[in-house]
């Protein structure tokens, strides 16, 4: 009987991602035996915590699911509560909501591309050594990140956990002076954006491809960040209100995390899915960036999620300028939100940095939340990430454990997982024992 050769690839606590996850790959005699991306974050129980709270606290509470995409949660919660209570937001409100979302997307994408992903390509463990070796790269990253936060400051009062967007509108509006000043900052970002495209176009991403289903919101008007329809790259659309039919959560035996599947199985959401599905609706500069970054659809290399984020950063900057121009032209009107409680059930979906975010609430006559369901982009991507790991691992194992570990870490990072976000349904179990660090 020949000896069994077992290769274990294990990365405890993948760094430079938001939250706590482990990679486990086992191969026996060259055959990949097991693949897991374990999530070991504390349980959060947001759906339960929302029960009994007043409807207008849904955005406040759910934004605390995640500091990085807090505005995304605010906007999904608002959209869902408004759907439940039959409130239709004004055009001005929708323009301001777009700005608030785009500010967050710029901030989040820049943080991910420069701080979390780029160090791998410079051969360092973080952005810190780059302060000495590539100060211009670090300073550019900080300027662009600040630009995203600046938009959120102007519209929402602060970048993390904004304080002005609420059910029915905004409790405070930006001044025309603030908007003009913001527009100047956006205009000045052109040089930094061009340098960013150049930097990321020059990175040699692992050449791995695996066709999958890409899901994103669809809108007839624009590159959709808000919308009532879910679009699939494999054809077909689903109304957002029927999201449970398209995006089905299930428990998998090897993981404490709930995974998601559509009819076709694992699917991907996020920047790459959106660029694949909405390429023709990108702003002109963003389409040029996509060409420079070799991102003309269909793209099936998940590592390109990061370059898709660069494309979206360009899009959001350009579109933010267009929205500011519209707001300044029409003038900002005071529209104090004054929503009256009404019983109902509603759903809201928003494209947030990492993909489609679904919120659903039931509200009673007194305006109390009686039921809540939240489906987070990272949770939707977990099954697809593992499918990629299954497909990629056989090619990585022969390269040695260290190389395999590092490349798989890069793959996890490419998805930009936001693990704190997904832990409203995830817990640490024995499989992910907390190691004393």
């Amino acid at each position, binding site marked *: 009987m020949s000896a069994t050769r077992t290769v274990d690839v294990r990365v405890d*606590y993948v*760094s*430079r*991602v*938001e*939250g*706590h996850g482990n990679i486990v790959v086992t191969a026996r005699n060259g055959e990949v035996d097991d693949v897991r991306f374990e999530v070991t974050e*504390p*349980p*959060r*129980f947001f*759906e*339960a*915590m929302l*029960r*009994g*709270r007043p409807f207008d606290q849904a955005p*406040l*509470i759910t*934004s*605390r699911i*995640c*500091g*990085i995409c*807090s505005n995304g949660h605010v906007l999904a919660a608002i959209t869902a509560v408004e759907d439940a209570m039959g409130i239709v937001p004004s055009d001005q409100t929708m323009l301001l909501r777009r700005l608030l979302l785009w500010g967050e997307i710029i901030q989040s994408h820049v*943080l991910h591309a420069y*701080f*979390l992903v780029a*160090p791998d390509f410079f051969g360092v*463990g*973080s*952005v*810190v050594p780059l*302060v000495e070796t590539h100060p211009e790269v*670090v*300073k550019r990253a*900080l*300027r662009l*990140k*600040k630009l995203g*936060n600046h938009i959120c400051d102007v519209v929402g*009062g602060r*970048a*993390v956990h904004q*304080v*002005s967007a*609420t059910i029915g509108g905004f*409790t*405070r509006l930006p001044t025309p002076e603030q908007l003009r000043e913001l527009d100047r900052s956006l205009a000045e970002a052109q040089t930094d954006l061009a340098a960013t495209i150049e930097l990321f176009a020059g990175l040699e991403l692992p050449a791995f491809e695996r066709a999958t289903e890409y899901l994103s919101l669809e809108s007839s008007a624009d590159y959709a960040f808000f919308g009532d329809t879910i679009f699939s790259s494999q054809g077909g659309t689903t109304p957002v209100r029927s999201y449970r039919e398209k995006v089905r959560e299930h428990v998998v035996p090897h993981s*404490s995390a709930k995974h998601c599947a559509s009819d076709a199985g694992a699917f991907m959401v996020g920047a790459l899915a959106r660029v694949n599905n909405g390429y023709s609706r990108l702003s002109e500069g963003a389409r040029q960036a996509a060409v420079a970054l070799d991102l003309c659809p269909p793209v099936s290399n998940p590592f390109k999620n990061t370059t898709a984020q660069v494309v979206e950063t360009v899009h959001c900057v350009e579109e933010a300028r267009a929205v500011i121009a519209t707001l300044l032209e029409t003038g900002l009107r005071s529209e*104090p939100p004054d929503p009256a409680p009404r019983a109902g059930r509603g759903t809201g979906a928003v494209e947030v940095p990492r993909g489609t975010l679904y919120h659903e609430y039931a509200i009673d006559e007194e305006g109390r939340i009686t039921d809540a369901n939240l489906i987070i982009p990272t949770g939707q991507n977990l099954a697809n990430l593992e499918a990629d790991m299954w497909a990629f691992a056989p090619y990585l194992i022969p390269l040695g454990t260290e190389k395999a570990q590092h490349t798989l870490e890069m793959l996890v990072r490419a998805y930009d997982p936001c693990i*704190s976000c997904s832990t*409203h*349904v995830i*817990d*640490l*179990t024995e499989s992910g024992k*907390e190691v*004393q*660090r």
Partner: protein
Amino acid sequence: MDGPLRPTKRPRLALFELASCAGCQLQILNCEDELVDLLQLVEFVYFKEAISETGNEYDIALIEGAVTREADETRLRAIRERAPLVITLGACAHPVGIPGLKNAHDSEEPGRLVYGDAAGYFPSTLARPVDAIIPVDAHIPGCPIHKDEFLSVVTALLVGRRPPIPGYPVCVECRLAENPCAFDRGALCLGPVTRAGCGALCPSYGSRCYGCRGPADDPNVSSFEALLEKNGLNAEDVLAEYVLYNGYRALGDQALTMEVSR
């Protein structure tokens, strides 16, 4: 804890995360204008969200998040043994923040609602602040922390001063900002009993204070009670709001009793 804090030279910082949204550590990364200088003054030896390399020797432990598992307690005790200074970041770590909302439910209900029949696989304890487990040297309050306050605390620690966190209530800053009082439009505002330092941000944006920075040192309770009475509000109304961020202090003892008696 009282008494002067020891000054340290280029202190090594370690950032640990418990149950939280990571928004407070993001606020550190959001110090875009100061980050390059900050990295000259301090060394981050453990900051998993931003840095791959990890070190086990540190001078200051920064802790974000609430305690929700037994494993968190073990981890905190080990950190306390290593760290000369332990500083909490944000409302989850103190007074307990949004994770404390869970405490309003009986301890099994949240798991059952989220996980259904599989709830038994997802043990979770009462949400508690860090100082319910280990002594803490200073709290940087807020949901999230304000980056200027973070920088001023780091500066204070570098020169061996006690961090400058105000003890007076939010109302002081709100009046300075010349905001109309939220009570005048019929809202219940926790500004009179909540620690200032946020510049009364939420009331300044047409909202009201939800109490994210925890209780002020010496709030004028009788004047708050008078204000409530004048507006037809009672202690129950206040408690319903107060549990949003202060669910350990408000409900903790009661829930603990339930847990122990089980």
